[in-house]
């Protein structure tokens, strides 16, 4: 994401709008191309050199914020590493101790030529069993600017060295802080569209509340609401975006997103979370968003940021349901450690429900051929739950087990015939509870 100083926006009246760039503008595309090439050229090199080279691109360029912004997004995809045979801190500590006995370690000693400095460095190098150069370079190898660029996206320095001049397109699920839900192609197209999204995210850092309207991909959207720790109020809406009384005549949903403390005061505390959530919206075919942005915190002055599917924003998030997959992953791990003949399998049983399909999460199989199907319902909205339960009733499968989170506000009755094949859980699902159900209901 962009740092606040790289944000670019304009306010008119009560509105605030990011200064989007035209992703087809050849000037920006050229800059993006240049930057990607620059990063490639610096694989294996110190971070400081890379940053100097980026600065060099902006010497007489008033678009420097754009250049720095694009560079920041690329930097976010990079990994830097300390390269030293011995912990740098140990090297320098040993050096300082040794030098302290011999001060002054100066340039023009009265006897000899530069010998004291070299003597200290080589004595420490010998003591630590490393070369003189490794000792000198390693002393501050852990400084940010001395760390080496070892990876851009999934491309590592070693791979790159072996591969030679290859395509600059890499597809990757980036790990670490970026989250596994992010999907990245390090191309010019990715960079310029990611940049526009990042500009909008930067405006949201100061947002106090977000009002969204979506007409599809509800599951995906609300799993991201949950993932980023936001709270919501939900209202069913029709195709014009007007609120309607009942869920069954809804075409879409409106939701107001904020956080726990928003109950007490207008808080920017959740701005970062709202910014993180934003990329979930372009996953929908039709969406609208209005955020209240605090532009002057002392005066409490606000502006409205309005975005929708016509702004050309593109998401790098996956459409997977995050919260459910966390639950599923944990269950799979627990199953590994448990002792039972029953096996937990990822299966693609498809229940044809007419105009749509339901694909349960797991199958539970016994070596003797008995089999049950498992559907997990983690966090969801009442509306989602309603449609889910309907599907489960429609599927009408005798061996369909359902595990439901107690966070959901619903009673046993909702489940029709599946209610006895149902497992309530609080934070996690217990393997043996499921095995018990499988023993009973498998066919």
């Amino acid at each position, binding site marked *: 994401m962009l740092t606040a100083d790289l944000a670019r926006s304009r306010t008119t009246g009560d509105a605030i709008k990011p200064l989007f760039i035209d992703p087809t503008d050849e000037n920006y595309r050229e800059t993006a191309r240049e930057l990607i090439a620059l990063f490639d050229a610096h694989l294996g090199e110190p971070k400081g050199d890379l940053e100097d080279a980026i600065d060099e691109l*902006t*010497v*007489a*360029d*008033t678009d*420097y914020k754009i250049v720095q912004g694009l560079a920041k997004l690329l930097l976010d995809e990079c990994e830097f590493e300390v390269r030293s045979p011995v912990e740098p*801190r140990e090297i*320098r500590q040993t*050096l*300082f*101790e*040794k*030098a*302290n006995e011999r*001060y*002054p*370690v*100066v*340039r*023009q000693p009265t006897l000899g030529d530069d010998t004291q*400095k070299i003597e*200290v*460095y080589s004595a420490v190098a010998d003591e630590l069993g490393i070369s003189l150069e490794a000792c*000198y370079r390693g*002393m*501050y190898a852990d*400084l*940010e600017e001395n760390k080496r660029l070892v990876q851009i996206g999934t491309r590592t320095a070693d791979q790159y060295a072996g591969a030679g001049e290859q395509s600059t397109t890499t597809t990757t699920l980036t790990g670490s802080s970026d989250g596994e839900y992010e999907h990245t192609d390090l191309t010019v197209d990715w960079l310029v569209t990611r940049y526009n999204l990042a500009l909008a995210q930067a405006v949201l850092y100061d947002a106090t509340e977000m009002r969204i309207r979506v007409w599809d991909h509800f599951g995906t959207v609300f799993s991201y609401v949950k993932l980023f*720790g936001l*709270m*919501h*109020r939900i209202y069913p809406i029709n195709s014009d975006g007007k609120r309607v009384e009942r869920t069954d005549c809804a075409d879409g949903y409106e939701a107001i997103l904020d*956080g*726990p*403390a928003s*109950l*007490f005061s207008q*808080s*920017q*505390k959740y701005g970062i979370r709202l910014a993180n959530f934003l990329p979930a919206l372009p996953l929908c075919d039709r969406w609208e968003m209005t955020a209240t942005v605090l532009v002057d*915190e*002392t005066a409490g002055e606000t502006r409205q940021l309005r975005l929708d599917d016509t702004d050309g924003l593109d998401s790098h998030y996956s459409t997977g349901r995050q919260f459910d997959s966390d639950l599923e992953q944990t269950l799979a791990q627990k199953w590994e450690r448990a002792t039972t003949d029953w096996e937990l399998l990822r299966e693609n049983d498809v229940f044809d429900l007419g105009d749509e399909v339901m694909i349960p999460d797991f199958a539970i199989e016994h070596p003797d051929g008995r089999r049950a199907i498992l559907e997990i319902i983690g966090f969801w909205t009442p509306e989602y739950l309603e449609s889910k339960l309907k599907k489960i009733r429609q599927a009408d499968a005798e061996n369909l087990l359902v595990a439901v989170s107690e966070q959901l506000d619903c009673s046993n009755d909702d489940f029709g015939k599946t209610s006895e094949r149902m497992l309530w859980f609080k934070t996690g699902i217990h393997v043996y509870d499921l095995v018990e159900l499988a023993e009973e209901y498998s066919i």
Partner: protein
Amino acid sequence: MRVEFDDGTLLLRDAPDNIPYAEWDDRVDEYRTQAYRYRSLLEWVGAWSDGNEQATLQDGFAHALEDTARAYPALDLTPALHIEPRDYQQAALNAWIDHGRQGSVVLPTGSGKTFLGLQAIADAGVSALVVTPTIDLMNQWHATLTNAFGDQLTEPIGVLGGGSHEVTAITVTTYDSAYRYINEYGDQFGLLVVDEEHHLPAPTYRQIPEMTIAPYRLGLTATYERPDGKHELLEDLIGPVVYEEAVDELAGEYLSEYETIHMSVELTAEERETYDEEYQIYRDYVDSHEFDLWKEEGYQEFLKRTSYDPKGRRALIAKQRAERIARTAEKKLETLDNLLKRHYDDRAIIFTANNDFAYEISQEFIVPCITHQTKTDERTEILERFRTGEYSMLATSQVLDEGIDVPAANVGIILSGSASKRQYAQRLGRILRPTDDRQPARLYEIITADTMETYVSQQRRQGVTTNADG
């Protein structure tokens, strides 16, 4: 009723409708209150007990309370102090204890507020979070707390901020980091210490005390009142002013006598050529636009232009490059080399204004070095070694002051500094203590002749003189 800490707030499950301080949260259909109401809430229920006192139940009115919010441990600490508390420090501590360990102490700068903080932490006997406005101050608290409690704790003093993210029973942090993370850690501290608390009433920072349950709170400042009147919020968030001591009631600490030696170096021919070239680009641009650079508005006008005029942008870069050449002039290292030869037996601190130069000196002369990049624990260790004499030299791009246990040097060498008068004056006060009686402490200032530095240095000295007179 069940009290839960939820993301910086308290969720009150099955609370009665007459519950005070709370708002109905229709998103979860429960009452919710701000985390800082924790103690008041317990008091209302009759479940609050303070130290040795028993919880006092209101007559015929004791709500069953399940408290899952409190996640902070009790601690039994005795500060390892080298000095006795001064009378006013003891009086301040007593006043704070008498006010139920909630409130602000107003003491002038340099009167040992950190020292008071240590005693409060030991007295409260619970885990503590210390919030400071800058990374510098955070580092100083870390050093002081490590000295006082380091041996008694099972884990090191925690650091949240400046690139570190270790939260332990006693943790130091900055306002910015605290604001960012308090909703995660607001249940883990029983005592909240806020240094320079007059910064706290800003809308964002205000959420730091709001989102923590800490039943004990101590605010420290030299300037309690804010021009905007917002200090009134502090009473609700921290507690009342429990003790105040004016400046002149305290015995002043005098700067020791020292001798200042100004030295100037020339740029090398090559440096001079580049310097003149870059400086000319800057000068030409400025002259052709009639900015009055001696005035604040004129300089702002110049900066503004650099954001849309490519030539202006180039001029700004030219200025930065010229400054850099002057700051890191080759001959400064030669002069430093000579000074280190002369003072090899002394305790010297070398100041630079930028990190690069500090590291260059560290590698060239093999002296320990502290910059903004130095991690808090390593910084504390280096200072400790300097204090004990294990290290006799130190290079730094940081202001090392205000801490109570900062080691003294008798030689200061300023290789380059910012024009900030305050910073300069603090630097002087910090280092200039003679380590023996025979010779006064000495301060060298090395500047590059015929560059922008010449002007900055003059301005700086004027600032110090003014301060000393005032």
